[in-house]
Structures are given as structure tokens and as C-alpha cells.
């Protein structure tokens, strides 16, 4: 069974801090994604990657960057956290033959 693991379930950071959200998948999937989910807005795609060292902007990339140095790991970086980045962050992976598999999310609070 595919497992997508996000390093933290809950995270509290201060405004201006650099924040790293880590995601690891164990099924050798080529594709990895970062979403954020906010009440009333559904899931919105931040960034995605179809291969190591490749990245593509999603719908709301502003204020975020990503890193994919290894196939199994996809990191989301908030360069300078702001209160409007308080949200639930969801990582997902997929391959040509499988649909999206999501982690259980990281609830980030920026104070």
C-alpha cells in the first residue's frame, strides 16, 4: 500500500521564519504535489514535480518554493512565513498507472 508521509502533523511558526514541510513517499512515484486546503476554498495546488530536480508552479505558488533532490522526497519551503499561510498543507504522489495518494496533512499555524 502506498504511503505518503508528512513529517509533522501540527506546526506552529512565527511570522518571518523560514519553514520547511517535508514529504516522503515509498512507492517510487514519479510525480509529487503540494496543496493547501482552506475552509470554503477547497484544495489548491501550490507546486508539483514530475521528476527529480524538476518543478512546476501550480495555481498559488507565490510565497512558496519547493525542492526535489531525491525521487522519494518533496519539500515545500515558506521563505518568510506570513499569517495568511496558516493552512492545512497536503502532499500527494502518483505515477502513470496510479491516481493521487495523499498524506494526512500538516496543519501549519503562523503567529
Amino acid at each position, binding site marked *: 500500500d502506498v504511503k*505518503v508521509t508528512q513529517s509533522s502533523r501540527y506546526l506552529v511558526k512565527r511570522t518571518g521564519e523560514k519553514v520547511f514541510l517535508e514529504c516522503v513517499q515509498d512507492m517510487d512515484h*514519479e*510525480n509529487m*504535489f503540494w*496543496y493547501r486546503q482552506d475552509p*470554503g*476554498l*477547497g*484544495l*489548491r*495546488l501550490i507546486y*508539483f514535480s*514530475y521528476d527529480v530536480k524538476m518543478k*512546476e508552479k*501550480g495555481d498559488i505558488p507565490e510565497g512558496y518554493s519547493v525542492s526535489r533532490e531525491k525521487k522519494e522526497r518533496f519539500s515545500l519551503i515558506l521563505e518568510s512565513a506570513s499569517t495568511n499561510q496558516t493552512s492545512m498543507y*497536503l*502532499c*500527494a504522489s*502518483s*505515477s*502513470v*498507472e*496510479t*491516481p*493521487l*495518494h*495523499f*498524506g*494526512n*496533512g500538516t496543519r501549519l499555524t503562523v503567529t
Partner: protein
Amino acid sequence: LAKTTQPISMDSYEGQEVNITCSHNNIATNDYITWYQQFPSQGPRFIIQGYKTKVTNEVASLFIPADRKSSTLSLPRVSLSDTAVYYCLVGGSSGSQGNLIFGKGTKLSVKP
């Protein structure tokens, strides 16, 4: 990317069949229709995917008419544990789904 429209919420009772319809008027020829389920504090989970006619698996059925401009997710004999948000997505199959638009989904509440 094809946009989808689905009801914001639905109520049902245990043991009933629930049908959630999704409209996708500008679906493209190569697009698949995929449904995900999400429980509170969890990531969405794949339920079912189809291209045309009817698809059935152990948890749901998916009905797609010939014009493919809509689809209906059917949950047989729901239980309290089926209370969740259900998302309809339209786009590439499997691996090319990452840039799909999730939207706000349908919040299904199952009552005893």
C-alpha cells in the same frame, strides 16, 4: 482544464443509496472523471475513476452518460462512516492528475 460543478452538501440516512452528480460541460476528449473522498483531518482518498458508461468497484459505482457532460457517483447503502467530503475531478488519467482542480466538493452527512 475542465471545471466541475457539484452540490455543496447532501444529507442522507443510513442504509440509503446516495447519488452525487457532477457537471463538467467542457470535458475534453481525453479527460477521465475521478472521485475522491476526504474525512476530516485526513488527505483525500481515491474512490473510483471512469471514462464512459459505468464503472463499479467494491465501494461505489460511477455512471457517465454518452455525452460525458456529467457523471454520478453512487454509494450503495451508506453508513455513518461515509460522512465525508466527495470531490469530482476531470482531467488526465492517473499520473497526469496533479494539476486537476479539486473545487469545494460535496459534503455528505449520513444520519442514523
